[in-house]
């Protein structure tokens, strides 16, 4: 399969590649940006692009949404898209908002504690606290610790 990069193959896989690009944008924000709120937003982007990936796997060409007519008389010729990814992603969206809210609450707590939501400033403050504690313990142990 690797040898044949036909036009069909490229168009058929373009959706996956676009979602991966989105996913990597989110990951880049999470890794490279120091602001914690921005990190959460990046995490959301990452998450949403994974959702898109799943939903696009469930799409069938010429299909329609998996909802039957209300009278339940089903035309056997109608193609329905795959409902299973939709169900899984519905669950994932709700779990995602739960984790997001927990992360934002943690940020609020961190802000109360450290007075900043920038990662490197928090690290510096923690380092200073650790150094102060080391010094304290060292004096208590008679300078041997």
């Amino acid at each position, binding site marked *: *399969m690797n040898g044949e990069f036909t036009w069909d193959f490229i168009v*058929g*896989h*373009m959706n996956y590649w*676009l979602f*991966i*690009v*989105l996913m990597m*944008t989110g*990951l*880049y924000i999470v890794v*490279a*940006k*120091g*602001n914690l*709120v*921005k990190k959460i937003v990046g995490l*959301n*982007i990452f998450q*949403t692009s994974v*959702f*898109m990936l799943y*939903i*696009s*796997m*469930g*799409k069938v060409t010429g299909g*329609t*949404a*998996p*909802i*039957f007519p*209300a009278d*339940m008389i*089903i035309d056997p010729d109608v193609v*329905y*898209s*795959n*409902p299973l990814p939709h*169900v*899984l*992603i*519905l*669950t994932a*969206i*709700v*779990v995602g*908002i*739960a984790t*997001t*809210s*927990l992360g*934002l*609450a943690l*940020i*609020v707590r961190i802000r*109360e504690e450290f007075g900043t*939501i*920038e990662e*490197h400033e928090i690290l510096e403050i923690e380092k200073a606290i650790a150094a102060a504690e080391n010094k304290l313990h060292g004096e208590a142990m008679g300078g041997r610790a």
Partner: protein
Amino acid sequence: MLVATAIAIVRMQRLFAIAMLSGVFSLLSALLFVVLDAVDVAFTEAAVGAGISTVLVLGTLALTSRVAKHSTHSPAIPLLVVLVTGATLMYGTLDMPNFGSPDAPAQTHVSPDYLERSPHEIGVPNVVTAILASYRGYDTLGETAVVFTAGIGVLLLISGLHRRREDEDEEEESGES
């Protein structure tokens, strides 16, 4: 549409507007879900992603600071990590079936069963609802448990803000997260 979302994300590298832009991003992805036949998912994404999470982010911004400072360390290493990960994932997609092909593994395994059986077993016109509430009801129960736990966690974290100013208890905090 995808190009628009991508532009939105690139612009999102900047200031306070990231909250609004993430709402826009959610709305655009909801539109994409409609195009991909996932109307239920689009509904939830528009309500939860564009609505609730924007409100939550704005609330956090109100409680904390509004301006993001520039990162001090260089972006070279994260960029490298991201590029390598992306390349690996793209290599992984080479074996995937074409977009929308009806004979992909995802289409031929259990989902035809669901589509065939749910009309006379459940009797709900919307197959997504039928699977969510009936065939995979335990998933939904677990999801409710997760949301409940997260709610308790948020309440515990937020409620003690002013009382706990002087004596912070680290082990309690790590237990909740």
